């Protein structure tokens, strides 16, 4: 397998673009990534598009706006992991030597559903019985609070940290700082969560251009190496399971660290899937940034804030940057690549050399999550 590099990234600010079509939301991110890469659109040999709810041919609908057509375009759906799974497919194709330069994009328009919780698959038994994503994470949170003594205030402080970071990100949907009291006092969604414990619904797009390490030299002197690319599905479990241990992330992290020959202590910056406050804490542990039950302390000590030992979600994460689900995976990669290039301005993680992205999702019965992707990057 060949070495693969990221040579271009782009995204649009996550927001509610009710008046725009999916294609209109998508193309500016793609154009930005191509310009950032310094490639001609004719250099792009294939494209992979991640979208969960964008409908048929999302990639073609976006790319025709820019006249990027007549090449193999593959559309990938994997819930929240859609564009990170698309990135994995692109990575495999380049690493295997099939293509030299490939485009990956993620695009989503959730405002078409008119608000409320994410529409889930109606064939699913638990969904037909009233399971919604905030409740699923809320149940994880309640069990974790019971098992590990996590307080409501500690849980709410995840959102405070997220917004502190997001306020510095011009691509974030929410750019306001929030207080602990505001998080605790917001409208109830699914106990123990208020509105500010939950990622917002919205629209967005993000894109990445990758190339073989050899080819990348033609376009840039500062490629970002893809250190590992890992995508997994959850294990279907019909019986009891520990909902405070996200097994798919634990399993994926082990494989990712082995593949990259990098350990959690070597990671300088990470974007993790904080769809709800409890998720960020669970993933600190699952990704090995701290021991089981220690995540609240890691947060309280400032270790995961910008300036701390292992800054998590400097972009603001899903909670503050937003979560147009199919666009999230590649948006995480955009953030980490910019961090590793030193282009993150007032939210720069100083000296970051190794970055990790983690994107997991899919509320279906019997799974911790349906899909999970973990990527690592280095300079």
């Amino acid at each position, binding site marked *: 397998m060949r070495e693969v590099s990221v040579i271009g990234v782009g995204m649009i600010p996550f927001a509610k673009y009710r008046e725009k079509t999916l294609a209109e939301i998508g193309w500016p991110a793609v154009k930005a990534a191509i310009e950032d890469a310094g490639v001609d659109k004719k250099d792009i040999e294939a494209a992979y598009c991640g979208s969960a709810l964008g409908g048929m041919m999302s990639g073609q609908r976006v790319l025709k706006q820019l006249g990027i057509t007549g090449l193999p375009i593959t559309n990938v759906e994997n819930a929240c992991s859609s564009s990170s799974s698309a990135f994995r497919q692109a990575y495999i194709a380049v690493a295997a030597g099939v293509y030299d330069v490939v485009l990956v994009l993620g695009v989503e328009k959730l405002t078409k*559903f008119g608000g*409320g919780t994410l529409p889930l698959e109606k064939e699913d038994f638990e969904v037909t019985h*009233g399971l*919604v994503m905030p*409740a699923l994470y809320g*149940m994880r949170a309640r069990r974790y609070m019971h098992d590990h003594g996590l307080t409501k205030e500690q849980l709410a402080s995840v959102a405070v940290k997220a917004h502190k970071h997001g306020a510095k990100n011009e691509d974030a949907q929410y750019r306001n700082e929030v207080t602990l009291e505001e998080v605790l006092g917001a409208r109830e969604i699914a106990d*123990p969560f208020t509105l500010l414990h939950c990622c917002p619904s919205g629209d967005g797009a993000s894109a990445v251009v990758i190339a073989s390490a050899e080819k990348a030299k033609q376009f840039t002197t500062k490629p970002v190496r893809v250190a590992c690319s890992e995508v997994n599905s959850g294990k279907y479990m019909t*019986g009891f399971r520990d909902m405070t241990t996200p097994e798919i992330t634990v399993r994926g992290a082990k494989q990712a660290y082995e593949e990259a020959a990098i350990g959690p202590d070597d990671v300088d910056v990470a974007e993790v899937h904080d769809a709800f406050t409890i998720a960020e804490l669970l993933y600190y542990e699952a990704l090995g940034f701290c021991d089981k039950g220690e995540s609240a302390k890691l947060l309280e000590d400032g270790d995961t804030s910008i300036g701390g030992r292992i800054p998590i979600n400097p972009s603001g994460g899903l909670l503050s940057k937003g979560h147009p689900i199919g666009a999230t995976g590649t948006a995480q990669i955009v953030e980490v690549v910019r961090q590793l290039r030193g282009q993150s301005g007032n939210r720069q993680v100083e000296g970051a050399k190794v970055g990790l992205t983690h994107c997991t999702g899919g509320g279906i019965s019997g799974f911790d999550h349906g899909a999970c992707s973990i990527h690592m990057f280095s300079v």
Partner: protein
Amino acid sequence: MAQTAENIHEKYPLDGAALRLATDGTPTLIGLECADCGTRAFPPAPVCPECMSENVRDFELPDSGSLYTWSVVHVAPKGWNVPYIAGYVDLPQSVRVFAHIVGVDAADLEMDMAVTLTTTVVGEGENGTVESYAFTPAKG
């Protein structure tokens, strides 16, 4: 697109093959038991998720178990009666069931408390109220 009540089954019992009601209304949950490998699962299905055998049979789940966790749901698609308490109930023989928790104030719920099977109205569909199985704190 407006949210609709289509997430809620219109038929009673809501749960199809997963719920059996005696003539006096006493509910029983039905799971799958694989005759070849012994795997048990809920809800029932025509094939074993462990060994792929189609030699499966109905299995009556115990009607009492323990509450693994819960959440009071305030925001849900149109049709559901909010707020409601969603929970996971662990039944003996290693089956976990997602269910509404009823007949109790959320403030009085406790982790791992004993709960027992019942039925309840969970929402409003186009053809009237929608009922489903649920669990409620065990008496005594």
